[in-house]
């Protein structure tokens, strides 16, 4: 896998590459209370498999970690996370596989149980909101109860931030991941930068 990566001479471009500096500047003057970071692109598949069958366990075994079964939750596996998007749908990421490998690997396992996996690595991108003021910032654009007790590590939510559909993933009290479709990423980044200034005022 690593060899194949090395062969590539085409340079991938992060959907928010042009906004990296503006996002980074949000930290200025916050004394670490707020930090916005771009997530490196990861391989991701949309996994569909019958939750009542043997598929989820088979996929779990293949990726090395359980698939979350409760609504609005996620779990970690050795190379990424598994986010429950629906009763029979998960987003499964890997920071080490390349996209085609990852689709093939998960799909092969799922197919044996009537399921399937579709490569969506480039469909979405992620911004990490970090720091003590992270949840406060999101409260300016998300109607859900994101207080730590209601939205602890392990929870996720498909919701709106501003006017964009996003997937929020809670990693820690001061660490939340915004997963957004690439085409909306610029809007979300601009929204975050704009709101960050207000949230601190």
């Amino acid at each position, binding site marked *: 896998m690593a060899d*194949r990566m090395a*062969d*590539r*001479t*085409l*340079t*991938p*471009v992060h*959907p928010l590459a*042009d906004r990296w500096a503006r996002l980074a500047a949000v930290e200025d003057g916050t004394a670490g209370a707020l930090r916005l970071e771009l997530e490196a*692109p990861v391989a991701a598949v*949309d996994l*569909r498999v019958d939750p009542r069958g043997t598929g989820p366990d088979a996929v779990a075994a293949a990726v090395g970690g359980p698939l979350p079964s409760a609504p609005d939750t996620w779990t970690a596996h050795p190379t990424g996370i598994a986010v429950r998007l629906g009763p029979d749908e998960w987003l499964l990421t890997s920071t080490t596989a390349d*996209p*085609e490998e990852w689709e093939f690997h998960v799909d092969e396992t799922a197919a044996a149980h*009537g399921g*399937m996996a*579709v*490569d*969506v*690595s*480039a*469909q*979405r991108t992620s911004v990490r909101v970090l720091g003590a003021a992270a949840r406060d910032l999101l*409260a*300016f*654009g*998300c*109607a*859900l*109860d994101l*207080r730590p007790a*209601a939205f602890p590590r392990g929870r996720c939510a498909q919701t709106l931030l*501003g*006017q*964009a559909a996003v997937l929020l993933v809670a990693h820690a009290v001061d660490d939340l991941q915004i997963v957004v*479709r*690439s*085409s*909306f990423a*610029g*809007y979300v980044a*601009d*929204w975050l930068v*704009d*709101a960050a*200034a*207000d*949230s601190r*005022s």
Partner: protein
Amino acid sequence: MSRVAGYGRVDRSRTITITVDGTPYTGHPGDTVASVLLAHGARPQTTSVKYGRPRGITSSWTEDPTGLIQVEEPFPEPMLLAATVEATDGLVVRGVNGQGRLAEVPDTARYDRRHHHCDVLVVGAGPAGLLAARTAARAGQSVVLVDDRPAAGGTLTGTETIDGAPSLAFVTDVVAELAASPTVTHLQRTTAFGHFDDGFVLALERRGEAARTRQRVHRIRAGRVVVAAGAIERPIVFEDNDRPGIMLASAARDLLHRHGVRAGREVVVFTSDDAAYAAAVDLADAGASVRVLDARERAPQAWRRRCDERGIPVETGTLVHGTRGDGRLTAAVVGPERREVPCDLLLVSGGWNPTAHLVSHVGGSLAHDAAIGAFRPATPLPEGITAVGAANGTFALADVLREAGGPDAPVAPAQEWPEPTLVLWHTPGEASRQFVDIARDATVADVARAVGAGMTHPEHVKRYTTIGTAHDQGKTSGILALGILAELTGRPVQDVGTTTFRPPYTPVAFAALAGRERGDLFDPVRTTALHGWHVAAGAQFEDIGQWKRARYYPQAGEDMTAAVLRECAAVRTSVGIMDASTLGKIDVRGPDAPVLLDRLYTNMMSSLKVGRVRYGVMCGNDGMVFDDGTVLRLAEDRFLVTTTTGNAAHVLDWMEEWLQTEWPELRVRLTSVTEQWSIAAVAGPRSRDVIGAVFPDVDVSGDAFGFMTWQDTTLDGVPVRLARISFSGELAYEVTVSSWYATAVWARLVEAGQPHGITPYGTETMHVLRAEKGYPIIGQDTDGTVSPHDLGMGWAVSKKKDDFVGKRSYARAENRNPLRKQLVSLLPTDAATKLPEGSQIVRFCDDGALPPAPVPMLGHVTSSYHSAELARPFALALVKGGRERLGEVVHVPVGDELVAARTGESVLVDPEGARRDG
């Protein structure tokens, strides 16, 4: 000056200057515009909306029906209240004569919104609200406390004692305790203006000009809502009760204790309630000459004693019948004998109305309580809501503390020897000069007229008289109107019912509701992975749904027409490249994928072979086209479906709806991959050279890579899919790659195209090229009433399939009507006029003039462009019986002219399709 030493909470160490109606006035931080004016014995130059009568300041807060001002500086805002606008240095306002004026300059201030979740929301930080918040906070609950005044304390003036100490010390202590609690959010200058189901409350915070955001809307979701919003004093109606100098008794007291302003020197207090005595006593202590006229036969004895001590005359059983003055008050007209009592301030009190708006917003009803002479929240309240203190009809401080504070409530001395409130709606007099709603110039005579017209329900009377519909929403007049209606219709007021309070409690600026959603953030802007390239290339963009798409790439000196002609010529003669990434893309997978697609497309998809591409049309149940696109068969059980840019989400929803609700037995899964894949369309006779150069491993010859087929390859190890799909009629390829690599692959294609002068082209050129080929744009050439047959695409409607969505509609007689509108081309016979899109089409008029109306319309122009290839303008049109009219000349009215145009086959360029293979 009527600023009284030793009173008020304004900061007298600092002086500010405001300008009202061109005159500068000095005041202090903590003042309102009203308190500054009254301190100078002035009022805004304001007149009433209907009669143009002078208007003064009637109250000291949001209930004021008069006192309207227009702020000019720092930013123009109409219809605000002098009583609520905080005085800040440099503020410029003027009185409103009837109506305000919207700003003509852009508002540069920021507005935003914030969501909150809490166990308890307390509305109002008077004694009741403070105690409710403290109790909840001490129990460990999360609390949001909002209050609309600048500081907590509600109507406490500082003269009261709580637990033996001055009441404001109690306020300070509780505020400090709440501030120290990590679970409490306490917001002053914040008005809860709307209450909705499930504990959802909207509140507007006025943060001031110095703040980064001028106003903030708080969207609060609370487990429980405590309404501690206080009460509003009820006036009594009498003749000429609208004259400047007439004020609520509570307002004068508020002005004295909050701002240190004595609102008059010679004061008459007209009351039917005990509370006004406090105003009488306080104003006398502050140096005014005061007389009390009590409508009741007995005065409250403790208050009477205090009045006696101060030499305040108290007359009982005495009514104010009218007033005298010119511009402002000079005397009260008292008793049936119409005795004139000189005064410059007439204070009125007819009791108190609980501020129960937030209870009413969510369906809570109000019941008349004879004991307090007012409507209060009826029990049981809607679930999750409690009302405490004056908002619940509990007016005496001692009772309020007990009700709101529970077992560890502080105590206040009980009121001695109270007298019950006398409910008095109006005194005898000339009904047409007795103002019920001073803001609307609506009188007792107007209510009588409504009753005379047969109206008995308050909602009807409200609409007929407009009472309660002004900026104050009838905070003082609404209940008066009920009482007077009851009297006129001979019913007890409790039988009349009430109108329903609706949000907003106080006016809210649209800018505040818009919040951050303005300018660039008005609506999400969706961009492709190639957006930066388009920007750098100087593209002009157009909005397609939420997408920004490159429309054309003007070179120096080019307008759109010139740029598009150049881009079109490049594609027709050499090669162009376009970003087609915005097309909706849906991965359709599963053993039953062919079945699903056969049912949703009009044409057959199951017969498509792996490696091939088919154009497909989707129709609604009505058989009318709603989307089109290409379908690639990736495997026996896997297809990639493309949709139009603007319709992608709708098509996915449509497919999911059928799949989930009608055909759940189908083993198919749909995945949106719109952003996953970027598409570069490379089109033109030289496109084969470009593709061959970038992908040397691919045999791009026509035999090896046929039209409407696809092949997978790699570029430096990155998977790439090539498809021979053409939306221009030219030899063309779509190059699909993971969006991670879109920029890199696009750069390779552009580089390889340099020898052929590869030209980036935008959506405008795409539209022209497809129109020259007669390819419709769904949503531009169609409007939801157009079938595939109307578009000349009957070939795309399968006759072999048993069923598909829309099929049954084709059996309708109307669908076979030969006069249905059909897509044809139009060539203006002058070969020069570009017909405006949307133009109507009529029969050819021999005399060159439109016949008299009505002129039968044959159809309309749907697309119209200049064609580089045809060297003339052309159009597509939907024309009645268009297929039967081919070759016919019709007229198109353009302005005052009739432009002749010849109908023809919709395909104008390369009708035999020779170019698609290069």
